């Protein structure tokens, strides 16, 4: 039984969202079903952005609700997509007559639940579009990109979508820009020790004392290989090879870089990895427009990290540069 500082294992998602809403200091409200927060103020006629997914990945998703970011986030139980009625309630709460973009990770549960919600919304005359994030290069070959999982690249998609949603003329325009952001991102994760689900207290996977999983997913899903521990630089080389050759990223490209903590890894390790990442990118003549290092998309207390790159063009850069304000992502 893994020790956690909680009250009721069945109520962690709900109690956490409550605490998150309080931390927003009045900038958000918690819906009465206790599974979504939405911005207190959403302007009339604004095209709305709703993000969401299972809980347990905090600060994703609810930490990214705010100015020039998401209008709302709907959160399921730990590692479980929210249900259609939860999504629908959040949809109604954020809709300002211009429709709602659903933005979420590409998992069977999320896909089906958001699809059902979209059907229900349509029946209520709320137009919706859905974009599934599939940045994880470890989860399926490029030919089957629509089978890939969404991991920390979510952050960049939400940043661009949120900025774009503030000025987009309509849902189609927001969808176009967000799709471009999604398509320009590639990520890959590794893990050295598991997380755990509060309700069982059991580790999400088993791994040897000297092993590392290359390509680990956000819920403990396996990746491309399980190997013996290796020096950080060698590991980063492997990860970057997968990421760079996939889009591919080439000389002259300009990228945003996210070195994301999956949970229990020290920031020291992330920074050591960053040193190597920058060596590789410099070597390939890929320039780094901005860098984020920290815990943005976690898998409970899993130890490991992921690297995400988003290739920029002028339009994406414009939206990336817009200020943003939320609990877990702030940009001046």
């Amino acid at each position: 039984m893994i020790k956690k500082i909680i009250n009721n294992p069945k109520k962690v998602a709900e109690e956490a969202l409550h605490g998150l809403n309080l931390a927003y200091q009045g900038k958000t409200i918690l819906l009465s079903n206790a599974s979504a927060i939405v911005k207190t103020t959403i302007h009339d006629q604004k095209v709305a952005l709703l993000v969401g997914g299972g809980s347990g990945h905090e600060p994703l998703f609810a930490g990214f609700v705010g100015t020039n970011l998401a209008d709302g986030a709907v959160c399921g139980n730990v590692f479980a997509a929210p249900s259609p009625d939860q999504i629908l309630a959040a949809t109604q709460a954020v809709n300002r007559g211009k429709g709602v973009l659903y933005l979420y990770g590409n998992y069977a549960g999320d896909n089906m639940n958001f699809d059902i919600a979209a059907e229900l919304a349509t029946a209520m005359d709320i137009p919706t579009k859905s974009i599934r994030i599939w940045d994880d290069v470890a989860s399926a070959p490029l030919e089957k990109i629509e089978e890939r999982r969404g991991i920390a690249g979510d952050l960049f998609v939400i940043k661009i979508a949120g900025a774009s949603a503030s000025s987009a003329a309509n849902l189609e325009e927001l969808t176009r820009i967000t799709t471009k952001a999604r398509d320009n991102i590639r990520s890959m994760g590794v893990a050295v020790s598991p997380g755990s689900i509060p309700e069982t207290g059991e580790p999400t996977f088993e791994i040897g004392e000297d092993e590392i999983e290359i390509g680990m997913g956000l819920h403990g899903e396996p990746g491309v290989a399980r190997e013996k521990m290796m020096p950080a630089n060698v590991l980063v080389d492997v990860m970057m090879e997968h990421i760079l050759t996939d889009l591919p990223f080439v000389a002259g490209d300009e990228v945003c870089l996210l070195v994301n903590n999956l949970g229990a890894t020290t920031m020291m390790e992330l920074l050591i990895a960053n040193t190597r990442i920058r060596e590789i990118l410099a070597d390939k003549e890929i320039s780094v427009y901005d860098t984020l290092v920290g815990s943005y998309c976690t898998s409970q207390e899993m130890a490991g990290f992921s690297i995400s790159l988003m290739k920029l063009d002028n339009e994406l850069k414009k939206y990336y540069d817009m200020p943003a304000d939320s609990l877990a992502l702030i940009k001046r």
Partner: protein
Amino acid sequence: MAVNSLSLEQVKDLFVFISSHMIESKDMLTHADQAIGDGDHGIGMARGFEAVAEKLDSGDFSSVADIFRSVGFTLLASIGGASGAIFGSFFIGASNGLKDCSKLDSPAFARCLQAGLEMVKIRGKAKVGDKTMVDALEPAAQAAQANKEKSLDEITLLTSQAAESGKENTKNLIATTGKAKTLGERSLGHPDPGAISMSLILRFTHEHIQGLSNEM
């Protein structure tokens, strides 16, 4: 004595029975999901059937189809994740096979499995061999179709057996959908958690009806 049909009240009892046994299966289902998924399947199913038990307790139902639809919407609303959508869709779909039925008899049972299967396939797009609950449900629906002239205890025994062997067969499959997908060959040897749930639901259905039959 053979049971040939269940009244509205008896269908309610059936779901009370299924619910309590699915809740008891929580840890077993979670362990199955730990092996090849994210380890929450039992948690979700137990949460769902707790909500169903509550709903049954408080609800007034106008028809057998209404009970199935309520069970479906309750699962859909309370589980979340893949299984909420799939098992919710199954029962909502199943209710379509029960239109205008005042009782649940074998032909209705066969239509109900078939209609549930169709809804699951519309929602999830999985087919037999993808290592999902469809691998338990589809053979069960076929068995029901082939035996719809038999008594309710017989048809539920045969569907339960078909689901069980379909579930067993998922051990030999490589997952192509859901969170076990990237496991590839590592998913071999482990049954699909959703297939276990589906075969359990059908097994508990049979056990409950068998119990009624013994009482008579």
